[in-house]
């Protein structure tokens, strides 16, 4: 940072020692030199960035602004950019809109998300370990099979799965949501395998000579060394299960078993007359808070995760 700053300083022409012809200096200031952006390009890049940033930030701003407005203000024309007065009470009010029993919904979501995160991370790591480290017949074929399941839409397996849960009498319970994550996810297996491959094999070999079992190696060497990758899988899983809608939608029917996505989707039903968008946005904001927290604390992990899977094959 400091370096670019100094270079800028010179480029704009404060060091007027006259050794460089003025025309050349202006030229290089405007159009840049190899290794440095010219002024014109800089203006262009930053104005593009700012315009796009406004467009990308607007929806989120609007959600929060609406969430803090009194009811009559959300319909005001011309539109009101800043809530005035700021209605903090919308947040507690949003939890009191008649609908599904909220504490139960929160508890169900926590159960689903925790199961999803722990289950998928642990099981995917086990499977990934075998594909990264062990030799066994059918390895290549099975790995291709795992990758090809990425192509299979949930819609294709949705109906038969529904029938299985129906037969088991598990419809409208949380079991069909809490059990499947424990069987590994293709995307996560792929990501973790890629990461495990980067751990030097010598560690394993040394441990094997010392008489460690494969499980010991997995649990005592690979897992501790892979914390960043495991955390990446965990944060992706968190966001996925926290936001999951379709699976709960087909499984759950009674309000006491709702997860928060169902609660949020049905939020507007109790309103008679116009929807109270301020309360709705307050509810949406509160719903997103855990995701936002995870995003801001684990952003590096998100970026790293999609880079591992997207770039390295």
């Amino acid at each position: 940072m400091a370096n670019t700053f100094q270079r800028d300083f010179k480029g704009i022409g404060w060091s007027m020692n006259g050794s460089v012809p003025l025309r050349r200096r202006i030229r290089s200031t405007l159009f840049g030199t190899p290794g440095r952006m010219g002024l014109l390009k800089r203006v262009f890049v930053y104005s593009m960035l700012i315009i796009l940033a406004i467009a990308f930030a607007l929806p989120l701003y609007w959600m929060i602004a609406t969430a803090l407005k009194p009811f009559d203000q959300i319909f005001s024309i011309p539109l009101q950019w800043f809530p005035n007065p700021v209605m903090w009470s919308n947040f507690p009010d949003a939890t009191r809109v008649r609908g599904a029993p909220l504490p139960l919904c929160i508890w169900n979501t926590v159960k689903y998300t925790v199961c999803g995160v722990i289950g998928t991370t642990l099981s995917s790591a086990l499977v990934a370990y075998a594909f990264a480290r062990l030799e066994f017949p059918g390895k290549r074929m099975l790995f291709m099979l795992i990758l090809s399941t990425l192509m299979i839409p949930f819609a294709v397996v949705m109906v038969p799965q529904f029938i299985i849960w129906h037969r088991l009498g598990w419809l409208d319970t949380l079991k069909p949501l809490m059990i499947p994550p424990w069987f590994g996810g293709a995307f996560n297996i792929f990501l973790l395998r890629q990461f495990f491959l980067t751990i030097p094999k010598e560690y394993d070999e040394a441990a094997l000579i010392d008489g460690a079992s494969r499980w010991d190696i997995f649990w005592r060497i690979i897992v501790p060394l892979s914390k960043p990758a495991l955390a990446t899988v965990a944060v992706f899983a968190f966001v996925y299960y926290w936001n999951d809608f379709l699976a709960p939608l087909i499984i759950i029917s009674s309000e006491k078993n709702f997860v928060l996505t169902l609660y949020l989707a049905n939020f507007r039903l109790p309103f008679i007359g116009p929807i109270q968008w301020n309360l709705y946005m307050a509810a949406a904001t509160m719903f997103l808070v855990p995701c936002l927290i995870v995003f801001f604390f684990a952003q590096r992990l998100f970026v790293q995760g999609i880079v591992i899977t997207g770039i390295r094959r």
Partner: protein
Amino acid sequence: MLRTRKRLREALVAYGFISPWLIGFVLFMGGPIVASLVLSFFRWKLIEPPVFVGLDNYVEMFTADPLFLQSLKVTGLYVLIAIPAGQVLALWLALLLNQKIRFLGFWRSLFYLPSVIGGVAVTVLWLWMYQPDYGVINSLLELVGLKGPNWLYSESWSLPALMIKSLWSVGGSMVIYLAGLQGVPRELQEAAQVDGAGEVQMFFKITLPMLTPVIFFNVIMAIILGIQTFVEPYLMTLGGPSNTTLFLGLYLYQAAFRFLKMGYASAMAWIMFIIIMTVTLIQFKFSERWVYYEMPEG
């Protein structure tokens, strides 16, 4: 002898490790896929016993069900327009972020965040923004003197509305492009610069070819996800008005869980599967022509 025993042992241990996935695959993936193929040859209302009808479901779909054809059209249009637009935007953002700019972390978070938090909450938010009279989008259009359309309530604007919303979540692709751009070797760019290549020329002659593997990956993932679009039409339009946003995923859901036509829905699911497979295979085939791999596989 000792070697074979050792290898056998290792194989057994390995199968132990992958058993969660194997069991899960049989129960929740492989089994259901076969089951849904079988089901697609039956007429089954869930409460009555299933009746074998052969290929009738498939025949009906393509000859006697205008809604199904409509859902194919809607999904196809969405994929053909929203995905290229989204990928161009994502690449454009990545190119901007790949300049020597300050606060890279800030910009990247801002563009990336929407794609991470997507789902019900965000869909409801866009539902609010698209309201014709009080929504922020039309209010903004009014500020610049334009009369905004009725968006989700308009037959011609409902699908474009969903396409525009999808542009908001291109951040995931953007991050992948950005990583790809950072992998383009500096020496190549410098060499081109020495040879007097301009910025635009450099982009089309060097950057873009080097990026093709990443573009390929992003496009395939976006298509697979795009064909399955469900939450947005379900929460924002329920397929309307006049079925202009009846996505394949939504119609399938309705057939299965509203009309309980399990066999018919399974047939539809298989068509969806076949479409995704075909598109992916075509992409792979086609990729040999335009994707440039510098590194050896591995």
